[in-house]
């Protein structure tokens, strides 16, 4: 039995690197320090996995040899006039580098999952820029933390404890104790409510009563957390203040703040369902902080307004730097979606949605992005790496994806591998294969090999190399 320390967690964008694993004869038997998602991954990753290469023969997926799947995959890609190569945010940068070379070789479109995640954020960064930092900067200095349309408690469970409100920094102390005491208050209220419900035999859910003032704690000189969201989340309950915004109204709210922090007045009494007095007080808190930060989630990029919601958030942050120091960061989902953007960008100049069909990289999300291409039914083949579009794309896109020849490289059995025509069983990167990945704040960290993969499962990088090699053979191209 051995204990491996300093393991990076290949699940979410928080990309914790302090995990401890207990390994006994090539099996992970215990996980320390990880969150529920991380633990589930390390202990159960092998439960439903692809172990053999598969090809679809008259409708059914049947086991075959690695050579045959490589052959089949290479043929599909070499013959395609407009193939899609999609996924990439759950694999290593090393594999992504090969993926880009393959996409270039076959003149395809390569896109990563940020296209349905923070793609719009990237589009607005390209319009206005972004004032950001690494997470440690915030752990040390941030005294005002906003989680806007994001719910780290559920999606990035250790984010608050490692990097923000409940972390210990050089210039800012953890707000954990304060939270505990306030928590007791909240719980007792809930208890009373439940009691009342029993007595009165009905649900008394006080209609959202709108406070006209912020709680006094918001004006104290201490680390504060504010949550802005369309619904009260676990994170919101932990916050010093929860600002509930009407669905699809974030844009108005953010733009209003841009005026309020310049001490300008509005012609309206209410924005996105929030009285302006409140907004003015929140604006004062923003301007008054030592260092503030907005963490924003896909709540902004997926709701009405999309890139322009983020545009407004980035602009607000920039404007705030006229009065104090303020920074902003998207809450990236997959553990290496940031790495996918980074590698795409250094090799091609563009972070996602790259069209190689003319022999050089072209970029225009909305035109060269995978959802649009599928909805317009333009692709004639697909290669999916460590991603599950069949499960997560809108029905129409998913259907147009599965009707063409589909290649899947994935360690797990997913709706996508079930619908594919060629399936490569791969090793779990970060557990069975090493590599590099980028944390949501662009800090690169090593993915480690903890246990050996089954003999039939190769790392994504090697699988892609074999396909690339085969494609070049088929096309007889010189390089």
């Amino acid at each position, binding site marked *: 039995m051995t204990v491996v320390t300093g393991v990076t967690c290949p699940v979410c964008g928080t990309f914790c690197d302090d995990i401890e694993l207990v390994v006994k004869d090539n099996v992970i038997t215990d996980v320390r320090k990880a969150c529920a998602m991380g633990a589930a991954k390390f202990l159960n990753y092998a439960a439903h996995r692809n172990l053999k290469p598969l090809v679809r023969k008259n409708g059914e997926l049947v086991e075959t040899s690695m050579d045959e799947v490589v052959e089949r995959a290479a043929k599909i890609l070499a013959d395609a006039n407009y193939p899609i190569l999609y996924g990439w945010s759950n694999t290593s940068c090393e594999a992504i580098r090969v993926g880009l070379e393959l996409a270039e070789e076959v003149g395809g479109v390569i896109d990563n999952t940020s296209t349905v995640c923070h793609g719009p954020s990237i589009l607005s960064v390209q319009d206005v*820029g972004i004032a950001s930092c690494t997470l440690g900067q915030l752990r040390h200095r941030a005294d005002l933390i906003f989680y806007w349309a994001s719910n780290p408690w559920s999606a990035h469970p250790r984010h608050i404890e490692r990097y923000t409100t409940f972390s210990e920094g050089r210039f800012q102390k953890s707000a954990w104790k304060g939270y505990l005491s306030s928590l007791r208050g909240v719980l007792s209220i809930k208890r009373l409510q439940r009691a009342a419900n029993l007595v009165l035999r009905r649900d008394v859910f006080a209609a959202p009563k709108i406070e006209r003032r912020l709680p006094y704690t918001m004006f104290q000189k201490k680390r504060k957390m504010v949550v802005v969201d369309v619904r009260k989340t676990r994170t919101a309950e932990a916050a010093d203040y929860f600002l509930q915004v009407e669905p699809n109204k974030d844009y108005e709210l953010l733009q209003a703040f841009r005026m309020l922090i310049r001490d300008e007045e509005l012609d309206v009494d209410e924005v996105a369902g929030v009285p302006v007095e409140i907004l003015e007080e929140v604006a004062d808190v923003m301007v008054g902080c030592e260092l503030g930060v907005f963490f924003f989630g896909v709540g902004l990029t997926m709701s009405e307004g999309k890139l322009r919601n983020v545009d407004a958030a980035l602009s607000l942050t*920039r404007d705030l730097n006229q009065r104090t*120091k303020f920074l902003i960061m998207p809450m990236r989902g997959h553990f290496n979606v940031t790495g996918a953007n980074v590698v795409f960008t250094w090799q091609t100049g*563009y*972070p996602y949605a790259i069209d190689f069909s003319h022999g*050089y*990289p*072209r*970029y225009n999300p909305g035109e060269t992005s995978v959802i649009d291409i599928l909805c317009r039914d333009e692709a004639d083949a697909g290669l999916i790496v460590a991603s599950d579009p069949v499960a997560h794309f809108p029905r129409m896109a998913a259907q147009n994806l599965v009707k063409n020849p589909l290649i899947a490289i994935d360690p797990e059995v997913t709706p996508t591998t079930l619908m594919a025509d060629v399936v490569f069983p791969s090793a779990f990167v970060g557990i069975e294969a090493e590599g590099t990945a980028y944390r949501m704040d662009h800090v*690169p960290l090593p993915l480690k090999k903890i246990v050996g993969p089954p003999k039939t499962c190769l790392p994504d990088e090697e699988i892609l190399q074999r396909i690339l090699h085969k494609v070049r053979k088929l096309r007889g191209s010189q390089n």
Partner: protein
Amino acid sequence: MDIAIKDGKIVRKVEEKRAEVVDASGMIVMPGGVDIHCHIAGAEVNSGRLLRPEDHVKDVEAKTALTRSGVGYSIPSTFTTGYRYSRMGYTTVMNPSMPPLEARHTHEELDDTPMVDKATYPLLGDWWFVLEHLRDGLIEECAAHVAWMMSATKGYAIKIVNPGGLEAWGFGRNVESLDDPVPYFNITPREILRGLCKVNKLLNLPHTIHVHTNNLGKPGNYLTALETMKRVEDLAEGNQPAIHITHCQFSAFKGSDWRTMSSGAEEIAKYVNHHNHVTLDMGQVIFTDTTTMTADGPFQYGLYNLTGNKWVNHDVETETSSGIVPFRYKRKSAVHATQWSIGLELALLIKDPWKIYMTTDHPNGGPFTAYPKIIAWLMSQVARKKTLSKISKRARQRSLLPSIDRELSFYEVAVVTRAGQAKALGLKQKGHLGVGADADVAVYNVNPEQVDPSKKYKTVRKAFKRAAYTIKGGEIVVKDGQIVRPVFGKTFWIDVKTSLPMEVNADLKRKFREYWTVEYENYPIPNRFLHVPAPIPVKAEV
């Protein structure tokens, strides 16, 4: 005269019958070009790429049988960067600003930058360990930490950017002078500079400290530049340089505001001409649309306020910061045109070409692809006059260029574009064609016996734009400006051997979780991580 090459090295002679012969008669043969300061890889450069699709779309390179595709203009993609340097006869490039925490990123990109040897400088001027140890006068401990950092990040030299200012920027502030204390750390930029200069000596690093001065890009800052050089005067040994002031043009502004801004090149040149402890590079400005990027967060924010252009900021915990702003240098802007003039004035007024090197601080002053233009300006008064006639009247009247008739010879150009840079970097096997040197050779199709660069500067420009041959490590990689053989370059890093790393590690380990958000064991980059690592062992005094 013949040059013999064998096994990637220059040798006395080879068996001619069995050797491949390159006929360079009527051409200029030089060592491969060496660039001491160009931002080509890493977090900051890549954020610049991400920020500017509109910059890429106008300049693309399609895939060929031998080369990868990519995009160009002001921040080329990695492959294109390598190809374009190689086509100009360059074989060694130095990436000057690497946030240590993000070193892996820089090296991943350098590995995807083909054709050239490379190295990169970690940013250490605002690292908490440096600030604290120097504040407490613990020079040797500081040196040991820097040594650890060099091998942890696979770095080559100590990079200092706006010392103290970047830490202050953590809370949105800056330092105004060399004696302005750094908030919360009670140490001054002067102490940081002197301290790291001593550390550099203790560690016997091949290059000097590589300094981007305080107050960069502010009128009147030529005084800060002079101060900076004077502060380390007494630390110099004999004629050995002790400090490199990079992209000096940006630190050579006279005047009290933008309206009165003028050139401080004369004063700086005067000082440099009388002292031997300083080397400089130009940071020449080109009239074009480019992308500015430095680790100088506060400077970049100022640039945003000036232009209103899109702005990227990226602060790095316990270490450094950085910023990016797209920028267009206009001929008709008095300030921009004066900057253009300053760069050339420095190169021409500093008598010894071994003290000042040609750079654009790519992409800050303009993309490196403009080097042939600069060579033409340096070699021809006519070329300078031609540009002068097109720039802002105010700038022209203030410019010292009309009064300067110096024109660099081909020999001097070879010094400012390779020999001098290699010497300053301590790359003994680069920058010359002597026996034992790396077989990195550039052949340019211009005949010095027949062509007068002063008049025929266009011919010269053309020749330097597309090398007739580039030979890298003994292999012909470029012919007539075309890549004929793609190769990887080496990555140099300094493997400092100190006698006291043990307790340093203990101290580091103790503070690690406190200072950073990553684990101690995940920070250092293993040598095997690099594509073609070339560690240079150095024995330190500590």
